[in-house]
């Protein structure tokens, strides 16, 4: 069973930049992103989040976000998705990096979640 990473940010550049950071250390992990509104303004888009879910080739997804309203849209998209998606209230960049590094190293979900626990800040 493969694990993937979904990054949701209010800003397209932040989401794209995090993908750059993660890909460098986790070349084999499916990392999909949703940044900004449909018009690429600051905000989040449920359409983009749904696309990040469907485009991710992994079986099970670990989702990370920046601010609370991204979480609300993430949860809406999760309600509408069939995939198994885990949402973490952790520091966005730092926890997405940790998760990607551990997935790349073949770590299982339970151990990844143990490593993410101290990064919970929201």
């Amino acid at each position, binding site marked *: 069973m493969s694990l993937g990473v979904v990054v949701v940010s209010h800003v397209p550049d932040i989401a794209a930049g995090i993908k750059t950071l993660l890909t460098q250390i986790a070349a084999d992990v499916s990392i999909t992103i949703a940044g900004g*509104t*449909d018009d690429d*303004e*600051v*905000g*989040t*888009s*449920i*359409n983009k989040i749904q696309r990040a879910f469907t485009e991710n080739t992994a079986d099970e997804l670990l989702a990370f976000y920046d*601010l*609370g*309203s991204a979480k*609300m*849209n993430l*949860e*809406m998209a999760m309600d509408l998705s069939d995939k198994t998606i885990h949402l973490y209230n952790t520091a966005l960049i730092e926890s997405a990096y940790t998760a990607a590094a551990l997935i790349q190293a073949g770590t299982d979900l339970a151990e990844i979640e143990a490593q993410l626990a101290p990064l919970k800040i929201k």
Partner: protein
Amino acid sequence: MLTTDIILTWIHDFDKKISEKKDYLSELDTPIGDGDHGNNLARGAEAIEAALNKETPADATAALRAIAMALVSKVGGASGALYGTAFLEMAKTSRDTTKTADLLAAGLAGLQKRGGATTGEKTMIDVWAPVVTATKGGQLTQKIIDDAVAATKPMRATKGRASYVGDSSIGHLDPGAVSSGYLFTSLLEAGGAK
């Protein structure tokens, strides 16, 4: 009672109010947020109008659903997910009842599920909650709405973007409370509050 006709009258009026008050709502969002609440909702209002124009909803459930989907997909901010969830929950409940109080209560429950806020946190919940209570008693008035909106001013925000500025959120109306005030004023005017 929320018939399809009342819902449409209600929402068209709300959309009009939003487009009129767009700048004011974004101004309210500036000192304690990111200054986009009016713009967000104006995008949503336009999308609602477009959706309802494109296809006349067959019944109340379809109308509420169309409104919800327009809000969810076009607003972008927290308010899109919140209002969208509220209308989605109203749409679900409208399969069993047309009672306004029951529908609004379902909407409020959706808001609370989505945002995790309760009353007193300086959010739209602080308008929705007293409105639901008043509607259950069959006596929603403009004063109840206005008082609920005004009551958010002295509150300290503990949810949403305004919570980041802590004490500095005190002394400002909550933008989402004000837009919810418009929603319920439109409902009253459309005769849907009973």
